[in-house]
């Protein structure tokens, strides 16, 4: 009998402690925001910077009491799903978000994944924020996808124009991985370069993403003696090797890409051979960064040990979602209300100095506001770090 009483008391104590601990974490209702993207494999850096940016910002918000939307204070919870860069997995991830009742999802990171999840998102009332460039995702009748960054067809022409004006380039060559994203970015880049009057000396050379020696890949390209070698859609893993091989083959011209890169990875993989490499940077520079952006970087490093420059861009998506929900609390359950709000939404940009604003853009490229306004920062790698070449804004 005594034993039974003791067991009961223990069970009660356990239940009570669980209940209290639950209460302690459940002071605020939880607002779930999803992430479906690639966090494993060669392109893991793209999705991991997304997920970690969201988790850093969510932890920061929760630590400071949560986010107030329509008079209710919420804790933010990030629900993440690794799609392994596989469209089938991306669909499964988006379906999981729908089952969890999540209406706002950041990702996917690549074209085919973003295209694959479109029907699931539209049928289940989900607004998603891909880091993928196909225009049909953002142009009517599509309306649930919002581009989370600057597209290559927006950054490419700006870079080529800058290089024509400042370096007098005339001949250009393109190299791309044999995958949908890099190939479509190459095609967009080739069209933009031709439109600007550049001579195309090589645009058919591609490579497998698992290539371990780029010398044979680049040999025929370098023999065409371009002034500019564009590494279309190059992943952070492949960029240092391509740069290194090109330089070792004696190429002395300019090298650029329209994707974001990581300074540490470039330094380790190519060292000073990467000096002068031009890429699209994270949407911040020391001149642009506010105190809040600097604190975000510090918190990110404290949580994950190492910062990723791309997170300067990736931090924005969650901020846009929360600020838009604040502007129209009905949008928490009704994505149509979110869409309506996007047309007129404007809020202070906490990550930039001055009076910069968070607004939705994309009228020129998509005919509707389906793109986050983030600064287009074009960098040059030099001495182990990125230096800002120029900053522009997409309309």
């Amino acid at each position, binding site marked *: 009998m005594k034993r039974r009483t003791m067991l009961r008391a223990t069970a009660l104590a356990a239940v009570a402690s669980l209940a209290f601990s639950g209460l302690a974490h459940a002071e605020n209702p939880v607002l779930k925001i999803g992430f479906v993207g690639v*966090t*494993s*494999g*060669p*392109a*893991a*850096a793209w999705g*991991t910077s997304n997920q970690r940016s969201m988790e850093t910002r969510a932890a920061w918000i929760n630590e400071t009491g949560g986010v107030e939307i329509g008079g209710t204070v919420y804790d933010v919870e990030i629900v993440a799903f690794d799609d392994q860069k596989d469209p089938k997995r991306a669909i499964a991830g988006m379906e999981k978000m729908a089952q969890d009742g999540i209406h706002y999802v950041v990702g996917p990171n690549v074209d085919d994944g973003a295209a694959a999840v479109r029907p699931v998102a539209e049928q289940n009332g989900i607004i998603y924020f891909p880091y993928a460039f196909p225009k049909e995702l953002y142009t009517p009748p599509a309306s649930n996808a919002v581009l989370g960054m600057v597209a290559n067809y927006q950054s490419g022409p700006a870079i080529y124009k800058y290089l024509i004006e400042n370096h007098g380039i005339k001949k250009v060559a393109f190299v791309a991985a*044999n995958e949908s994203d890099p190939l479509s970015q190459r095609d967009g880049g080739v069209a933009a370069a031709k439109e600007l009057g550049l001579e195309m000396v090589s645009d*058919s*050379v*591609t*490579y*497998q*993403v*698992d290539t*371990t*020696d780029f*010398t*044979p*890949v680049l*040999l*025929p*390209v370098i023999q065409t003696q371009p002034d500019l070698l564009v590494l279309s859609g190059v992943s*952070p*893993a492949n960029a*240092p*090797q391509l740069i290194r091989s090109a330089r*070792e*083959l*004696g190429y002395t011209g300019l090298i650029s890409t329209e994707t974001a890169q*990581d300074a*540490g*990875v470039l330094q*380790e*993989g*190519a*060292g000073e051979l990467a000096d002068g490499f031009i890429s699209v940077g994270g949407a911040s520079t020391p001149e642009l960064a506010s105190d809040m952006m600097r604190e975000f970087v510090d918190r990110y490093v404290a949580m994950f*040990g*190492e910062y*990723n420059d791309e997170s300067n861009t990736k931090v924005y998506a969650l901020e846009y979602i929360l600020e838009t929900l604040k502007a129209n609390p009905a949008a928490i359950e009704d994505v149509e209300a979110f869409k309506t709000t996007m047309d007129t939404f404007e809020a202070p940009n906490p990550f930039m100095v001055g009076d910069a604003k968070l607004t939705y853009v994309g009228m020129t490229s998509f005919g509707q506001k389906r793109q986050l306004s983030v600064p287009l920062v074009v960098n040059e790698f030099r001495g182990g770090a990125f230096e800002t070449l120029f900053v522009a804004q997409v309309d």
Partner: protein
Amino acid sequence: MEQILVNGLYLGAQYALIALGLTLIFSLMNVLNFAHGQMYVLGGFVTYTIVSQLGLPFIVGLIGSAVTLAVVGAMIEKFLFRPVIRRSHREESTMLLAAGIAFFLDAVILLLFGEKQRGVPKIINGVFNWDFRIIMPYDRILIGVLAIAMIAAFILFMQYSRAGRAMRALAQDRVAAQLMGVDVDRYSMIGFALGAMLAGLVGGLLVTITGVNLGMGGPTSIKAFMMIMIGGAGVISGAIAGGFILGMMESIGLTVLAAYGDITYLVIFASLMVFLAIRPQGLMGKPWG
């Protein structure tokens, strides 16, 4: 043409070294080690940590990779493959186990080393340039020579050492070797450790050239399987031949076929299908296994 041949030789040397470890494990234990690529990646990350993070000389990193992978390989054989082989006679059991180990190592590598591409500084600066007919950075030449030296050392070890002879006996006839007094468990473990060590050594060598990242494991395993299919599974000379043939085919294809887009691997795979239809046991494999 000279450049194509040199590129092919360099690629072939590194490929052959990767394939050697895989074919050794297959010949000793009849195990298709799907985790071989992940072992290569782990070797790369160990060298990276020792050289770039701890600031120690490259040779220390290389030895560190070899030792780490040898220990990992021995543990995997002793605690995972040995019990499974003992309890199950179905070949797919070891295949599933190998696939599971590949996923496990991927997760461990992600946790320990992160998702980013990593690399170590060049071990030698400068580029050999023979009148623009052959251009080859000195570090690639060194890595190629080291790879060939390691292949030679491995052959000598297998040919003349007691352990090498025991492993060859095991590969030829497991039961007969056992009856002749060969300690099957011991030499299976040594063989697996040696195979894993070779993967780690290549990873350590190539991290200076190609860098290393989490996603390289799967594709590396696939290439290694292609090489041993070309040369003949379980035959050491076949793995070497397969490595050099694949390296040469890649080098020629990437140069000659560049104008037609990325069809090099399409051509290689199509050729491999035709070749295997004619000679399923590979160049040097035996039709009976």
